[in-house]
């Protein structure tokens, strides 16, 4: 391994990315499988508390509000959580959504509902995209490898601070805990953080309004902006979709199994392709629809009972047959996918 390669876990890669982009504050609460993110940060904090500020909060809700306070003061701050903690942190996330606070959150999915398992699931998709009592004005990246944990950690901070919407990097327990070799590199761009306050013009910030029309004015403006930036930041990937009769859709770590399965099936001359939303919100319905229009059917594969299915169906702008392979809270092996296609 040369010096810009590392053999680390997804959680460690998240912190490497945060360091590379100049993050300087984390507020969190331990919860499996995201705990190591806080622990890795704590190591940095113990060596340099000013450069790597930290609060271990009393719970995830408080951690989220600590993070907001830090961001208001100008820190490039973030939090990390999982499962039930992800549920709790929706309260501060919706304040960030309302007040355009660049909140970066790393959420490692585990089995739900409730405490479920501490291991794996893909059931926090709707929570990440539309949690809270708002309109889902948050960017959600779904990562599938340790390299992506690093790359999208960097991207999350830049997107958050450039566009001023919360950004969630959605992983899962497998990506969080597995070790892979990755390349670390300097962030190509680095959007600076800024304090929300200065001394020359006092700002009175609020998120509670008196009458319907006051809130409507602010919210409609934010919705318009979010839709405008969606075109710039929407991301997806695909393989073999150009001539595919069957297109498999998956995200996160399931994508890796799907890609492998598709390679095997293609070798057997089966015209199958695969599509992966990288941004779950905004969702690249346009690209998917373009491919879907020319194929016979879509197969949605996920470790949940329909989170991805709902996203796909609400973003498809073409009519096509859809089948689903749903295995809530359990991993999906390459062989299972191949069996399902045949």
């Amino acid at each position: 391994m040369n010096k810009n390669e590392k053999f680390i876990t997804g959680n460690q890669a998240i912190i490497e990315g945060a360091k590379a982009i100049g993050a300087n504050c984390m507020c969190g609460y331990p919860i499996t499988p995201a705990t190591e993110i806080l622990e890795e940060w704590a190591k940095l904090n113990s060596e340099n508390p000013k450069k790597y500020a930290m609060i271990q909060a009393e719970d995830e809700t408080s951690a989220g509000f600590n993070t907001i306070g830090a961001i208001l003061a100008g820190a490039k701050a973030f939090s990390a959580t999982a499962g039930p903690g992800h549920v709790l942190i929706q309260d501060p996330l919706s304040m960030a959504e309302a007040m355009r606070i660049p909140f970066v959150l790393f959420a490692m999915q585990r089995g739900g509902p409730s405490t479920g398992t501490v291991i794996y699931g893909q059931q926090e998709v709707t929570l990440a995209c539309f949690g809270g009592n708002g309109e889902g004005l948050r960017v959600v990246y779904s990562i599938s490898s340790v390299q992506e944990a690093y790359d999208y950690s960097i991207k999350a901070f830049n997107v958050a601070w450039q566009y001023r919407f919360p950004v969630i990097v959605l992983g899962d327990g497998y990506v969080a805990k597995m070790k892979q070799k990755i390349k670390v590199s300097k962030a190509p761009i680095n959007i600076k953080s800024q304090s929300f306050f200065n001394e020359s013009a006092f700002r009175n910030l609020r998120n509670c309004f008196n009458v319907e029309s006051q809130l409507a004015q602010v919210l409609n403006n934010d919705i318009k902006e979010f839709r405008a930036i969606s075109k710039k930041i929407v991301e997806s990937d695909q393989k073999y979709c150009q001539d595919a009769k069957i297109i498999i859709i998956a995200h996160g770590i399931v994508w890796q199994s799907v890609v492998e399965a598709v390679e095997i099936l293609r070798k057997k001359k089966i015209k199958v392709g695969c599509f992966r939303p990288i941004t779950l919100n905004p969702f690249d319905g346009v690209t998917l629809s373009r491919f879907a229009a020319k194929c016979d059917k879509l197969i949605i594969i996920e470790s949940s009972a329909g989170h991805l299915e709902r996203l796909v169906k609400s973003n498809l702008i073409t009519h096509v047959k859809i089948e689903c392979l749903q295995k809530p809270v359990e991993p999906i092996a390459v062989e299972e996918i191949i069996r399902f296609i045949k």
Partner: protein
Amino acid sequence: MNPIPIFPKCYKESSKPHKYCGGCGHGIALKELGYAIDELGIAKKTVIGLDIGCSLLAWDFFDVNSVQTHHGRTVPVMSGFKLIDSKRVCIAYVGDGGGYAIGLQSLITAAQRNDAITVILVNNTIYGMTGGQTAPTTFSNEKTTTSPNGRKCWETGQPFMGPEIIKSLNNLNSFVARASVKDPIQLRQIIKQAINNQINKDSFSFVEVLSTCPTNWHMNAKESLNRLNNQIAKQFPVGVFK
């Protein structure tokens, strides 16, 4: 030349008359906070967090940077802010619900951790903004909309003694006190002491302010002052605890 009102210098005049009900103790507490900020000369470096409840009516009260947060979450926001910008004076202005109910956990954590913020908690023994429900500080037999026959303290708990609990948390340098809107000058001094504890000792400070809510107590000025001076002052002793 017509005389003008003696507002604190840090008052935002365009938001006056303010939105608090006539006779509300918040008006007195905020006025004294304003004078305290003037006298300490800290308007430019202060950030005030407002909670949900009648506290939020102060969102545009001052020409001082401020942020209105979620209910019970003003303290953690100010703690996070202070961590990053320790030169600012961070004040959390909350009520008895935001402080002693939904926000109690964060209040105690901030005190225990000795976060160098100043929490001013306005206690009027009721939830005012939402129309008069029971608060942790509500008295036995006090009628509220969620205890229409009077609060049954043997079932729901005795009135919560916040400063007494906070002072017993393990911290030598924190400042803990209780004051009342019926003595505005003393209230101002205590607020200044609390803020100075943040500035000079880099430590936690907490001031509970006994206050009135004529609207939800269904009382006029005479009756609400009477209640404040007698029943409330007897239960919640005023003073500096540490």
